């Protein structure tokens, strides 16, 4: 009889092993598939985005004199600041290429240098007034089309992909013409071009000129918004969690509250934006496009996340701790503040960080309260108009200039970096302080 069973088992063993193998390989395939999606996604973003962190410069000998700037040496500071720096740059370009005489050609020549160079030159002048009357060899930011070719180190002598070369895959895709490419090549051969780390990407606000556009305003806006979100949602959520977990009686009312909190966590975020528009902007008259409103709206959104994770963390503290504290004569408040809360804190902070990371990546509710705006000036307070990183990505993705494609991916990379850091902090925090009972 028993022999018979062993036989049966042995006969089916092969089949069972096979089934297990299939089951395991399905799991492996699923992981490989999702990993490869991730790799493709990240790969394409990094491939498109890394040039955003580089910028090309062109060296020019710029003469800063009364003649080129249209102001006298003893002009007031304000007058000197607004002098004709554009003219000085154009003169320098004409001197570099004296053979360019036609008006249209000159205009094409001027287009190689970024339109922001005149402001950089103005700043250079104002740094030290003794620079007046001299010729300086300066590195000026290249315009986006020239920048795109220079920083990818393209061969500028190749044909351009238009007309009969439309199908030539080897040809250059650029809006520059052959003259402009020739001038660029001349700069390049003379060693007067340089590709550097793009500091402007981190120090500038938004701009309509791709080569000058940066994420500073959006970063600061995100920081202000998250600060407000944290200041509002953390204390409220922790207080709510402690009350519900430690003090609240079990009755219909607390049941309703609990159901509502769980429900709130699943409400689409755009709904919070509509609420923000109706209540905070239209009724309370808070300013549009301001981080303070963004922060309030996002804290409404993150509250349920933090409450739920805080309650879980509080629940994980074993009752024996509470009983021991009580036994030694601690009041209920002392039990919570001296024992339960400190022990639950790592879990609460983890939940908070994850909630904030979610808020950092949020766009939809901010659309409604006017944070989808063109912001050049860096915001100085929570009531200044601002935008946030994901919204900046959204705005750049819609810009007609091609050079914004790389900026879009670059901004996504920065956003991803912040999210990774935040989530990593959450994981480390949990690893380091979590106690198993």
């Amino acid at each position: 009889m028993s022999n018979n069973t062993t036989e049966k088992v042995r006969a089916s063993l092969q089949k069972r092993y096979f089934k297990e193998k299939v089951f395991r390989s399905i799991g492996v395939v699923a992981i490989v598939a999702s990993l490869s999606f991730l790799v493709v996604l990240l790969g394409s973003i990094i491939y498109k985005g890394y040039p955003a962190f580089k910028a090309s410069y062109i060296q020019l000998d710029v003469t800063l004199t009364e003649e080129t700037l249209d102001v006298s040496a003893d002009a007031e500071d304000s007058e000197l600041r607004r002098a004709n720096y554009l003219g000085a740059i154009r003169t320098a370009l004409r001197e570099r290429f004296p053979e360019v005489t036609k008006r249209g050609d000159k205009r094409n020549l001027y287009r190689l240098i970024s339109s922001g160079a005149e402001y950089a030159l103005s700043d250079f002048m104002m740094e030290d007034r003794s620079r007046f009357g001299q010729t300086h060899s300066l590195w000026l930011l290249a315009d986006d089309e020239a920048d795109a070719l220079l920083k990818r180190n393209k061969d500028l002598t190749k044909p351009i992909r238009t007309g009969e070369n439309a199908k030539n895959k080897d040809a250059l895709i650029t809006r520059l013409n052959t003259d402009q490419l020739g001038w660029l090549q001349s700069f390049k051969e003379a060693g007067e071009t340089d590709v550097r780390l793009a500091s402007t990407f981190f120090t500038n606000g938004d701009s309509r000129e791709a080569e000058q556009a940066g994420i500073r305003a959006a970063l600061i806006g995100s920081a202000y918004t998250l600060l407000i979100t944290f200041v509002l949602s953390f204390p409220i959520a922790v207080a709510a969690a402690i009350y519900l977990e430690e003090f609240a009686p079990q009755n219909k009312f607390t049941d309703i509250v609990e159901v509502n909190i769980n429900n709130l966590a699943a409400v689409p975020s755009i709904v919070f934006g509509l609420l923000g528009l109706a209540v905070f902007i239209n009724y309370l008259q808070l300013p549009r496009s301001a981080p303070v409103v963004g922060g309030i709206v996002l804290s409404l959104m993150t509250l349920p996340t933090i409450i739920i994770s805080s309650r879980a963390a509080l629940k994980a503290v074993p009752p024996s701790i509470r009983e021991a504290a009580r036994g030694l004569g601690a009041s209920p408040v002392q039990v919570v503040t001296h024992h339960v809360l400190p022990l639950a804190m790592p879990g609460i902070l983890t939940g908070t960080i994850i909630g904030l990371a979610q808020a950092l990546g949020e766009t939809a509710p901010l659309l409604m309260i006017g944070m989808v705006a063109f912001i050049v000036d860096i915001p100085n307070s929570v009531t200044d108009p601002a935008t946030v990183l994901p919204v900046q990505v959204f705005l750049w993705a819609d810009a007609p200039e091609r050079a914004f494609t790389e900026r879009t991916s670059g901004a996504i990379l920065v956003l991803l970096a912040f999210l990774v850091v935040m989530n990593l902090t959450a994981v480390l925090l949990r690893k380091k302080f979590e106690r198993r009972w």
Partner: protein
Amino acid sequence: MSKRILLTASVLALTVSQAAQARDYISIVGSSTVFPFATVVAEKFGKSTDFSTPTIESTGSGGGMKLFCTGIGVDTPDITNSSRRMKASEFEMCQENGVTDVVEVLIGFDGIAFANSVEAQQMDVSLTDIYLALAKDVPNPDGSETLVANPYSMWSEVNPELPAIEIEVLGPPPTSGTRDAFAELAMEGGCSTFGFIDSMEKKDFQAACHTMREDGRYVEAGENDNLIVQKLQANPDALGIFGYSFLEQNSDLVQSSMVDGVAAEFDAIADGDYPISRPLYFYVKKQHVGTVPGIAEYVAEFTAERTWGDDGYLADKGMIPLGEEARVEAAAAVNAMTTLAGIN
């Protein structure tokens, strides 16, 4: 914990008190078509003057008008951009809410490109061809004066002179201003060439002309014009509908089709020869001039020759300027802040 609550309360109190204070930057809302142009001007304005850079929100023309007309005061926008003229109903709404002094500025034109990849053959279509290829219901091909569901699947069926390629057009969704303008200018222009549709009642006429086909030949590609350009590159047989500034910025990848014998080129749009173009406006709340600093100066910057002129920087960004005389006249009227008496 009580300290935190105190802090929270004080932050809230602070913001409420700050909100009541005056605003020192110009607030602009409105059309996403004007957005790329207005932002350039705002940036230049911020960099070259001591005023703060205006903030510009892209809300769409209709959304902008609504915000603009909510009333006067620092919590309402000072300027709204629009890719169409203010409607009479919007003007009335403004009046009712106390926005009585509105200055209208016509800044230029935007062409809507009907384009394909440079790798394909340039198309030469008429508005009638566009209508027949893209409308949901078209006049019966047998010549009777009835509408039938669009039977065409190849361009050569629409018009024997066109190449024998499948009709596939990528364009904006109904929420887009570009779509409205395309329906009004291209589709209507094409369908009014059929006498019997032209003599229909207004409602039926619009239904017949503006409804795009939904059988997959017209593909709604979302609001992002960059996406359409990318898709045209990938599929040389497809055509796309998008704003002129995207054509200009991608002139090495896509080419404009000839519409009624005219390609969407700078001069053709400026002269009004290209049939699918629309006017761009912005509206200024005169009552805010003097309250919010810099409005008059911003308007002056916008209407300066180096900005909106033939060689101005807006032309570089793809906006089609007004004629020279029109510009001089408009600049004078605008800088004198002549208000709008009414819209009919």
